[in-house]
Structure formats: C-alpha cells, structure tokens
C-alpha cells in the first residue's frame, strides 16, 4: 500500500477572472469531526472494496457488458454527497456504482443488478450503466454521454417548480464536458436560476483521450463563464476539499443564485471500462497518483493523527469486506429474472 502522505494542499483554483459580478467565496477545506472523518473513511473504503469485487466478478464472467469502476475517484462523491439532505437529488453517467451506494442503496441490490439478477435494483434489466432509485432520489445511471446534464437540469427545474428547496447534483466527466447539450443546459439553468450543481469529475481521460487532446479550454471550471455560471476547481482527491466545495456550492445554489460548476480534479486508477488496455498512459503515472494522492490513505493518516487506533480502522475494513462479500455471494446465488419479465415494464399503463 502507499506509504507517502497524501497531499493536503489547498484547492488549486486559479484566481477568478476580474468581474463585478457576485462570485462564491473560495471554499475552505471542511473541518470534519472525528466521527465524520470515520464516516468518510468508511464510505470511501466501501466504494473501493465494492468496485474491486465488481472487477473480480467481471473477470469471472459473472458481470457482462460494460463495467466502469470508480476506484481512485471516491473522495469526489463522498465529499459532495455527504453534504446533501434528503430533499436533494443525484444523477450521473455510467460510472455510477459509488454514487448509488452513497445514496443509501443497499450494496447487494447494486451487485445483483451487475450480475443481471431479478433482485437487482432494475430487476436485471438495466445493468451497470442503467440503475435508478426514485426512493433514494438517485435518477441514474445514464449510458449516453452528457444526457444526464440536461436531465439533471430538469431535476433542478422540478425542485424549483415545486419549491421543495431541493438541489440537483448532476455529475459528468471531462469527456461529457464537450457535449453540446451541456451548454444548452448551462444556458437554461442560469437563465432560469435553477438549483443545480454541475459536477465535472475530471479524471483526466475521456476513455483514452486526455483532456488537453480534446478540450480547447482545458480548465473545465471556466466552461460556464459565457453563461455567467461561476466555477470552482477543487482537489477531488481530498475528501475534505470536496466537502468544503460542496458547502460553498450548496450555499450559493440554495440562496437562489442559480447553478454553479465544480470541477473536481481526480484520477481513475483502472481503465475506462473493464476492457480498456490502458495504453494511453504509463503504469508509473498511475502508480505515482496511488502513492502520493490516494484519497483513502489521506483520510486514514488524518484519523491516525487524531489518535484513532489501528484496530478500529481494521474493524471498519473487516466490516466492509463482510458487506461486500455478502453482496457478491447474493449476486451470484439469487435467480435470474423470470422469462416473463421480458415483457413487463415496457409501458406503465395498459392500453
């Protein structure tokens, strides 16, 4: 495991362009209590172990199709979603397992979907990229790059229309940030002052294309400038920076000031999907990030500094391994969908 201490430097935001428009304050790293820090550690580790297990099951042929793992990016979703309330909604693309776990969806429901079983969250009909839980205000799980940005703007529209005080958190990647509909959505979101936080998870590679090979403006937090949407660049490997940015963004959006963009600088350790040969970057590059910036090691170190016993962290690790192992066992043993399910859920009503 990595030994090097994780960087705890401040978010590397460039100074905002000169403007007399109101801008959000520079976010500060979140000052977490020991309990909160333990929770962050737990949540990030749960995602990591869950994804490692999903990778194994994929290798065994139990998970089919596409499977996009979140390993390395855990601090982003944990930091941001820990700041949400139950009024708020979440939507993302196809790298969605981690976000779902954080919405409170049971790991076995997600894992059983990955193996295509009746007990899966989508009855086995959706798969890795298409999972939803209206109950947990998780709106997908979308397979078309960028679609979740317009849809998430629509969720924000619904929050404002109903006046329920909720905020939509719409995640997308650095690749999706070049899609046209993202900018159509930015325009409407700002025009109508919709409560949406646009989260760009910049993991540096859109499949195999690095950001600066695909983006004329590679400082993605600036992408809202021509729509007057403020943007903040955040160290997405640091859960406290992520949580701090979430606080700032939520304050801005809940005050009715319209949408905001958070560019979370992060890194995925694994390939784009399980079938990615990863020829576009060196093994050393990946190892260097793991060694220097791993989000889980960072929090582990902070916990040790606060005097949390090694044994307590071991216990957390064991508990998580047990949950994940149970989810995996369940997902292998629970039955496939009944053949009759082929024809159900096409339409809601009967005509």
């Amino acid at each position, binding site marked *: 495991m990595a030994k090097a201490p994780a960087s705890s430097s401040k978010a590397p935001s460039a100074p905002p362009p000169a403007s007399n428009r109101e801008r959000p304050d520079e976010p500060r790293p979140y000052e977490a209590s020991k309990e909160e820090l333990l929770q962050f550690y737990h949540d990030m580790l749960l995602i990591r172990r869950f994804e490692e297990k999903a990778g194994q099951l994929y290798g065994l042929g139990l998970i089919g199709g596409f499977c996009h793992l979140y390993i390395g990016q855990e601090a982003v979703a944990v930091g941001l979603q820990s700041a949400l309330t139950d009024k708020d909604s979440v939507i993302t693309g196809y790298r969605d397992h981690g976000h779902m776990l954080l919405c409170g969806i049971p790991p076995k429901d997600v894992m059983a979907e990955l193996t295509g079983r009746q007990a899966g969250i989508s009855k086995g009909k959706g798969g890795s990229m298409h999972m*939803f839980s209206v109950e947990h205000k998780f*709106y997908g799980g979308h*397979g078309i790059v960028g679609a979740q940005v317009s849809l*998430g703007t629509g969720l924000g529209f619904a*929050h404002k229309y109903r006046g329920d005080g909720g905020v939509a958190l719409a995640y997308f990647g650095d690749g999706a940030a070049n899609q046209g509909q993202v900018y159509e959505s930015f325009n*409407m979101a700002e025009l109508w002052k919709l409560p949406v936080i646009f989260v760009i998870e910049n993991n540096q590679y859109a499949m195999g294309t690095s950001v600066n090979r695909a983006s004329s403006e590679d400082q993605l937090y600036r992408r809202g400038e021509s729509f007057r949407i403020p943007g903040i660049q955040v160290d997405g490997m640091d859960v406290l920076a992520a949580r701090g940015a979430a606080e700032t963004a939520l304050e801005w959006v809940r005050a009715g000031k319209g949408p905001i963009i958070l560019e979370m600088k992060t890194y995925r350790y694994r390939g784009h999907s399980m079938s990615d040969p990863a020829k576009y970057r060196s093994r050393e590059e990946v190892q260097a990030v793991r060694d220097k910036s791993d989000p889980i090691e960072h929090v582990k170190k902070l916990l040790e500094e606060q005097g949390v016993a090694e044994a307590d962290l071991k216990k957390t690790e064991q508990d998580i391994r047990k949950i994940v192992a149970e989810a995996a066992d369940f997902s292998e043993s629970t039955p496939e969908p009944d053949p009759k399910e082929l024809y159900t859920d*096409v339409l809601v009503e009967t005509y």
Partner: protein
Amino acid sequence: MAIDIKMPALSPTMEEGTLAKWLVKEGDQVKSGDIMAEIETDKATMEFEAVDEGTVAKILVAEGTDGVKVGEVIMQLTAEGEDAGSVDAPAQTKDDTAKPDAKADAKKDDGVEDSAHPAQEKVETGARQMFDAAKNDAQVRDPEVPEGTEMVKQTVREALRDAMAEEMRADDRVFVMGEEVAQYQGAYKVTQGLLDEFGDKRVIDTPITEYGFAGVGTGAAMGGLRPIVEFMTFNFAMQAIDHIVNSAAKTNYMSGGQMRCPMVFRGPNGAASRVGAQHSQNYAPWYASVPGLIVIAPYDAADAKGLMKAAIRSEDPVVFLENELLYGRSFEVPKLDDWVLPIGKARTMREGKDVTIVSYSIGVGLALEAAETLAGEGIDAEVIDLRTLRPLDKAAVLTSLAKTNRLVIVEEGWPTCSIASEIAALVMEEGFDDLDAPVLRVCNEDVPLPYAANLEKLALVSADKVVSAVKKVCYRA
C-alpha cells in the same frame, strides 16, 4: 387608373381573414412600406403594408369585418396626380398591377410568411389537395360520444389548446415548454392564451435548443412533473430524438418499472405547404418503432382534444404528432366537461363492405374523399383512422379486413419502413386468409419533398391515387 388593393393571403392555405383595423383613412397619402391595415387569421395577426404610392381613394371593407375572402378588393388607391373622386367601382377582372405585400412577424421558418397571392391564382399544390380534403368529416358517429351530446364546431388548433388548458387546470404538475409557446402565443398559435391564464411558471419560452430542453423536460418528468414539450415542428425534434428515445422511452424498462417519464412531446409533423424537404417529414414510423413510447396522430378536432387529454394523463411518454395543415380545420367536437378518448383504439370513420382504407392524420381526409368518389362508382369503402400508431389497434384493421377482404393503406409519408409497411406485414402474418387481393400502399413518393408546386403535388399522396389503388385491389379498371 385606380389600383385595387386586395385581401392578401398570409399563408399558402389561408382562405379568409378578419380585417381587424385600418391604420389609414380615405384621403391619406401612402407610400411603399406604410402599414395600412392589421389582418388577423386564426394563426396570427399581421401588418399589411403598401407597396404602391398614392392616395387612399376608397375603403371598401370596414374594419372589424370577419370572413374577408383572400383576393377581395378591400381598398382603392389613386396614383400620383389622379383625382381620388374619379375612382370607378372595383374591376371584377384580375388586376396584376396590384401586388400587395403582407409581412408577417419574422419568425423561425414556419412557412406563414409567404407573400400574398390573389385567391384567383390559388396554386394547385399537393398540400392544397390534402388541405381541401381535410374538410371531410366522419360519416359515422364516434362510439365514444354519449347519445344526445351537443356538438360544437372547433378547429383542431382550438381543440388542442382547450385540452392542454383543461388538464393544466386539473393538475398543477402539468406545464408547457418550448420555443415561442408563451409570449408569442405559439408559433402556430396552439398555445394561445395559456400564458395569460397560467403565467410564466407553467408556460415557458425556451431558447432554440431542442436537445437541451427535451432533456430538461424529461428530467422534470423523472423528478415528478408532467411536462408538455412543444417542438415548433417535429423536423427540429431530430435534434432531441436521443432524449425521446434513450431517456424517456427506455427508462421505465431499464429501471425495472421504478422510474417513469409521464410527459408529452408534441408539435406539427409531416408536410406543410411548400416548405421543402427539411420541414416536411413524417416521423410517425420512426417513433412508432420504439418500445416504451405511445405515438398518437389524430385527424379531426374531437380526436385531437380527447387524445391530447389522455396523453397528458398517461403515465407513459407520448409522442403526439399534429399536422399544420389540419390546425385551422374545423370539426364537430362533443360538448362534454371531460372529453377523454382511449389511447390505442382506432375509429371507423365510414362504414363500407367492398374495401378497407386505413390511414391516420391528414391521410384520413384523403381517404374519406376517395371513399366519396368511389361510392359514386359503386365501390363501398370502409375508412379506418388508426389515431394511435403505437400501440396499434390491430384488431380494428383485421376485423375490417375480414369484412371487406381488401386493404389499401394511405400515409402522408415515405413508403419505405412506413406505418403502411407495418400494417401490410401485420396482415400477412395475421390476416392472410382474409385477403382477396394484395395489400397496396399509397404513400408519398420516395424522394425528399421538393419545393416546386408541381413537383410537390406529384410527390404527395392524393385522393386520386387512393381511388386508383382501391380500383386495383377491387380489380376494377
């Protein structure tokens, strides 16, 4: 010599209008570009500009007059140096020197800003034929209408508006969004008056970003609202088809029935008049091929109203295909507090025993007209309006076929991979033993729709083409 100024046609299908207001009076000098009058149609109010210079000699139609026919002389001008008092009564002959120019509010290519042409020169286009045929009413009563119900005449446009307004009154989750739906009152005035009644929270003008706002609407439906997303025409919805198909249609299935998309995508579809290939496509077969969507394409006003209300109430995403040429057409609508029709049920528009003609949307008018002609020649045709294209009312088609043993399908759209092809396949699979003749399709020609009037006419379906197809399947030369 006085110049006769005639009532202008503000769109290719306008036949009459209201002379709302005169902005000049007798004796006034006018020059080219002066606004002389305001003219209203059911679609829009437009300013009528002078193109000739002269003095207003006589105003022949008072302001506020309804039903002024296109081409009727409404005023006379005397040219420079002439005596206004010496003007003769308007000439009955065609006067080519009078070419008044009507200028519509500039807006996104909807075809209404066609310059005026006198009624005498009414161009015989294919769209004109379809438009004229769309006067044909059903010969048999809709079984859904209770006995003794009062019927009122209403345009398809008004019927659609009333349907939306009634549902918006009943359910505050329902809202309308789209280009020009609010302040402009609708590019085709289908949303007229909704902004005044419901305000800008529920009647929302969007930027011209079909992909984006279709996604916003779909997301709002996922979030618990009931959006009506208007496309100015379905030609522009090609930019948004990803959200209609991938986001709206598939979500209920992909989520195992947890996440619904109750919403309506609506707007005009198919050929209008002389608007060329990019504005004249029928997308019904595209959407009708997608599991998870409901696809509705009504013909008359009663169906437009009853099915729009059903569409808004449905828990499923609905693609509601209207037709621009039908908007201004009036039909009988039952006067009922809550006129809602069942989705997925065809309607027998005319009963007959010799042949079944199946159609939908504007094709129904052609089918009815053809049936009338055929009746004169001793062929008794049954006309079925599908109304809903997905799910298709297979039983209605097969039952009628079992009675007549002959089938012609009429579709204003391309023949390849069409609704007509689908019905032909259905009949091969499930009605083969009832067939006494091969099934024939009467569709548009397999070309992008041309602009030239004569070519457009050749490309589009017509009642004549239906008549000859019917004779063929009846083995009557």
